């Protein structure tokens, strides 16, 4: 069961990009944002979605698994760090491996950069900068119990299906009530993706 982590609730996102600006202010990568703001139905609606690193748990961080230089470290508490500056060779393997399209490559610096769950803040008990400022709570940092206390009845998912692969993540997604489907071991439901039944 997950501990303190980020929960993403696209239903609350207003597309303001406060998370993007806040991420830029974070001391660990000041001046660069590691968050993407995506629009899910361009031309149809203003629906939007902030994408942070999902901190994959099972299989262990595909980005780290494919890194030929062992530059991406995963901490004991499951945080997938951005590439170690002394090891990263800027090969982009991690970018290609990530099923969520998160890591960025700074071509000039030959360095992969991504969300490291504001390790410089969470290590001191603070929430990551993006979830701290998010005006709507579309990004929430805390435990599942804290989220459910604040939002009664909320359901989340931390398993995602990509073709034949199920990826379990450290960051979870709030699921619309009518999309909640099958309970899986661990007690959390799975979001249907590509219409595949993963029971």
């Amino acid at each position, binding site marked *: 069961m997950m501990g303190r982590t980020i929960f993403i609730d696209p239903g609350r996102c207003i*597309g303001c990009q406060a998370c993007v600006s806040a991420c830029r202010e974070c001391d660990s990568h000041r001046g660069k944002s590691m968050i*993407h703001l*995506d629009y899910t*139905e361009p031309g149809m609606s203003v629906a939007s979605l902030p994408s942070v690193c999902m901190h994959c748990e099972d299989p262990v961080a595909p980005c780290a698994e494919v890194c030929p230089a062992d530059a991406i470290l995963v901490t004991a508490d499951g945080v997938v760090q951005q590439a170690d500056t002394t090891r990263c060779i800027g090969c982009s393997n991690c970018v290609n491996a990530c099923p969520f399209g998160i890591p960025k490559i700074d071509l000039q610096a030959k360095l992969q950069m991504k969300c490291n769950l504001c390790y410089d803040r969470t290590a001191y008990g603070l929430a990551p900068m993006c979830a701290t400022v998010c*005006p*709507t709570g579309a990004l929430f940092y805390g435990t599942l119990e804290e989220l459910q206390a604040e939002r009664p009845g909320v359901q989340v998912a931390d398993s995602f299906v990509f073709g034949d692969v199920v990826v379990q993540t450290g960051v979870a997604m709030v699921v619309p009530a009518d999309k909640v489907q099958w309970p899986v071991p661990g007690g959390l439901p799975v979001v249907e993706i590509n219409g595949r039944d993963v029971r």
Partner: protein
Amino acid sequence: MTATDPAKAASRPVSISIDPSIAPPGTRNFRDAGGIPADKWHADQNGETLVPTHCCFCGVQCGMYLRVDKGGKVFGVEPRNHDINRMRLCPKGINAYQQVNHPDRLTAPLMRRSRDEEFKECSWDEALDFTVSEIRRIQEAHGNDAFGLLGGASLFSEKTYLVGKFARVALKTKHVDYNGRLCMVSAAGANKLAFGIDRAGNPFSDILLTDCLLIAGSNVGECFPVMTQYLWGARDRGASLIVIDPRETAIARTADIHVAIKPGTDSAFFNAVLNVVISEGLTDEAYIAANTTGWDEVKKTVAEYPPSRSAEICGVPASQIVQVARVFAGADKAMAWHARGIEHHSQGVENCLSVINLCVATGHIGKPGAGYGTITGQGNGQGGREHGQKSDLLPGGRSITNPEHRKQICQIWGIEESELPGAGTSMMEMVWQMQRREIRGLIGICNNPFVSLPNYAVVKDGYDTAEFHAQFDFFLSETAANAHVVFPVTTWAEDEGVMANAEARVVKHNKAQEPPAGVRTDTWVICELARRLGAGKHFDFPGSREVFEELRVASAGTVNDYYGITYERLDETGGIVWPCPSTEHPGTPRLFEDGRTYHPDGKIHMQVVEWHPPMDAYTEEFPLSLTTGRTVAHFLSGNQTRRLGALVEQTPRPWVEVHPSHGFRNGEPVRVVTRRGSEVFPALVTEAIRPDTVFIPYHWPVPTSANALTIDALDPRSKIPEYKVCAARIEAAERVDEVPAPPTPPGREAYPEAQVSRTDPLPPTSPQGRGTAERS
């Protein structure tokens, strides 16, 4: 970056050092930074301090800390767990600190004797002496009223008080007004008529208690993003959400009922809702009988607005009108909040009154979770008009035409009543008077009418006709670039003072850094001008604190009573809501709990509202409604936000939002034509807007200015311009108009980071006109 070892991290030096000269006593408690003692995490080995203050932008007034380095310079922001925003910030708030030490800051007065000359930097004495000599020349030749003053609602309340006093006592002119005239005066007028008090009835926190929330004409997600947490909080409790907006905005998207109303038809809609409420027996007759006047006339009028008739006027299904009536009136507790969408009209006051009628008739007023509110666009939109900056008001919201009120203020100011001028005209009317050479000189403080007033051609002509124009600003705005004298003044982070947010909660901003050399506070400049005009004894104010003490006394006993609010109390609390008549009084977050209003009879005066069409008639040549609004990355005329790299990158240019039925492709150049002119924007094709309506965000100057196209028709009572609707047509064009760079001081190049983004030729690719974040 390598992983941080938590064990090592926890052993970092952790003491906080505070510079007592910067952080005032009582505000040095940082325990709320992150909900844990700040000194457990915030290492100060770099000498960093956090100064508690508030955002300078919209009427939510989020609390924030400014990060100050050991050299005393603001260099960042840290969220603050203030009652209003509970750590939340929007992108404008996060980036606001970047303007404090921005390379475009004005750091010396600029002067030229005619508009044919270039600006030259000059000494403060030269700029002040030239201004005073021009004031004297114009007033001696054409009378005191030939000189005008325009203030702003982003100024601290102390400064707005000084602006009003300076106009009446030092300039001795009746012509003073402010840019809040373009903001929420319609709501203010309606609230005064109905309740005798000009403010929201409930605090934001009441939204969390309501069962039904009606939002009319407010794109909360983009204009007041931090308020959204209250909306979603109400939704978590199961509250219904009704949104009235021609566009499917971020909050409309998830509403239970989204009424995509045709712009300019709001009062017809609300009259019909009330019609249904009455016919279905959902009124609170006991409340109406005990607490109101005028109900019979209102009832008679709304009988003329059956849903079938209003449905046709408003372009919405009649069934939606019935649905809104049942949901709103049927809720145990319901609230209505509105903003510029229903206020920026030639019938803005009527629109607000029609919402108030609905709240009152259903008994949804004066209770926790039930009431009304208007969302103020500017940081001090509420406080900016309370203390005499508005053409018809004296401090404390007193009327300038009321003999008793005049007498009271003259006693406080130490002048004869015969010396106090009468009521002046509104901001737009002053521009027309400049065109007619009735006003020949003008000082502008903290406003940018070249972008923010409607009908740009008229505004430019008015200002060009003026013989003398001086402007206070910290960036060279488009309006300041037209002036003869520009005074470089402080940002909000370099001075202290109070603002009142949309709840009428007075909060204190603290000084975070010393102003750059050559920059003065607005207070200093106003007092210095007054001294040189011979009125120095009335303007002996070393700083904001002394002005606030006089303001407190000047407001004592009025509806807008600030007497019990002191800087010390504000430092100790999360802000105090007026009226607050004594230093022991806790403030008044919720109005009318005892059923009494601020009219002498204590009743709510319900007002008859008749709908009339917008001023700009639709014809075959101009069949569409043009409506305007904000984008989340920019603030008002954009003078501040169009210079901040991150915000420019987020929204580099305006666009025209059109429905797919017009046949344009995304990004295609579209010419928008109104009776005032035409401009070309990239198309943002989306189903989130009515087919008969087009939308342009208004933060940019010509040739990409929405306000070059909007109409300068005014509401007859509030004198607010009809920004939100005018007749237009669209046609294919060859290329889009280029976005101009903001003016920069002479001898300096434009801020390079922003310059790159501003010339970005890419059309918007997302529904809100923002490019999806680049991935590399």
